[in-house]
């Protein structure tokens, strides 16, 4: 279980102090599929990065499975079972897909095990296993490899920051399928997705609407989705392409 207790995050810029996250308290129960939506600039991605430990909190406390992780590093949080998929997957010259999956799994997994993870995200394993994770891969391919690294880690909490960003419609459809599959899998895993895609919101157990650094609404899909559908908080796949 993930608990955020009165967390805030400010940055100091030329205009003085800007509050990005304002005193948010939130509980993400185990084995749920939770989607955080909200307008651009509302603090969604920052919240995801705070959970992964990429930015330090300005104030407040984060508790994961009963342990206070507020002062724990990215590495420590990762080793406790928190996974984080980047909005813009990082490219590496020289590191292959297999290298990355081995780093993710924490052991020298066999090629066939690595291939299983790639197959799960809909990539033909043979074609990708020895490819470098560099700019020769498309946005959609990188995104799926990014998700495969989360699968290879077998995390307790998987945080996805705008998984639909930068991919084409075809890849987006595949992505939905992957999430549906993860959602259905019996693995003991909590999934937290930052997204305002209606189709991702549609498979959520819980929806949180974040705006201006605060929680605007929070509740089950059935309670929240009807209110926000058709708004910028729950847009159709094609509106994104316009």
């Amino acid at each position, binding site marked *: 279980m993930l608990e955020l207790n009165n967390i805030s995050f400010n940055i100091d810029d030329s205009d003085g102090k800007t509050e990005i996250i304002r005193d948010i308290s939130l509980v993400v129960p185990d084995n749920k599929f939770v989607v955080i939506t909200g307008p651009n600039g509302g603090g969604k991605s920052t919240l995801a990065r705070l959970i*992964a430990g*990429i930015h330090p909190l300005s104030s407040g406390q984060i508790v994961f499975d009963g342990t206070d992780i507020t002062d724990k*590093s*990215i*590495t420590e949080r*990762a*080793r406790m079972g*928190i*996974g*984080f998929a*980047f909005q*813009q*997957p*990082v490219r*590496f*010259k*020289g*590191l*292959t897909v297999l*290298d*990355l999956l081995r*780093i*993710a799994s*924490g052991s020298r997994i066999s090629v066939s095990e690595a291939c299983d993870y790639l197959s799960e995200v809909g990539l033909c394993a043979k074609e990708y296993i020895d490819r470098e994770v560099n700019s020769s891969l498309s946005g959609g391919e990188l995104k799926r490899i990014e998700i495969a*690294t989360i699968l290879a*880690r077998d995390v307790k909490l998987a945080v996805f920051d705008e998984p639909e960003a930068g991919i084409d419609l075809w890849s987006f459809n595949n992505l939905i399928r992957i999430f549906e599959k993860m959602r259905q899998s019996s693995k003991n895993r909590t999934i937290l997705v930052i997204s305002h895609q209606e189709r991702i919101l549609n498979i959520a157990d819980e929806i949180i609407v974040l705006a201006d650094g605060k929680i605007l609404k929070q509740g089950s899909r059935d309670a929240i989705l009807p209110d926000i559908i058709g708004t910028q908080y729950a847009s159709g796949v094609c509106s994104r392409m316009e």
Partner: protein
Amino acid sequence: MNIDTIQQRLLEEVADLHDVPEGAYNLRANGKSIGRNTTANIDIQSKPDGSGIDIRIKDGTTNESVHIPVVLSESGLKETVYNDFFIGENCDVLIVAGCGIDNCGNQDSQHNGIHRFYVGKNSRVRYVEKHYGSGDGSGKRILDPVTEVYQEEGSTVEMEMAQIKGVDSTERTTLAELKEGAKLVVRERLMTHGEQHALSVYKVCLNGDGSSADVVSRSVARDTSYQKFDACIVGNAACSGHTECDSIIMDSGRILAVPSLEANNIDAALVHEAAIGKIAGDQLIKLMTLGLTEAEAEEQIINGFLK
């Protein structure tokens, strides 16, 4: 063949040799040849003046290899060795060179290997050269290799050169001249640390129509080390050339990249690229979110980059 454990370790580092190699070889240790084998197609002879060896490979030799590693484990030894390779026509061979220096003393040790390759028509040569240094003495480990490649029509040379550890000072010069349809591919990997200096100079002349060259260097400069990469491709015919220098700097490492192109023919197509920068913060963060520490992440990124 008598080799001690230090020499054995050096051989493993520079030539992946755990035992006596198969095929033709010449092993040189502390200034002397300590083992040699020739085959029906590959002959190795000492030069009459003792300055090095001539390696002659018969026309049509395929699937054979030549190993000519050099190890130095005596402090204060300085040598220049001339090795000439005469490769016939229609060959397909692997040549493994490489030099390992272990210097535990306080005098400088230096090996300069001057390698000349005369590659016959339509032959393909794969050349692998690794340089390695070890030992904790105050004496420097110095390697100044010169590689000259003369390629006949339709020949291909693929060179893989690596210097990852322990060489204090290196000045590497590679010169190549290519005739019609010849192809040269170079992959250089270099890592310097401590106060090391490394200079790598290439001059590739594409003299024949349809000739091509692809020279790619990947390097990492750590601590206060310094590197200079100076690659020039000269297009004298309807040819294509590409040079690329991709570098990571760490700590107070410094790198000067000077890629240059000279087109003397209207149909010469030449490209150069150079990029220098530190490891991207996002790359470190990504690997840390996979459970690595910052130091482990750095190591993985560098190992991958230099692979």
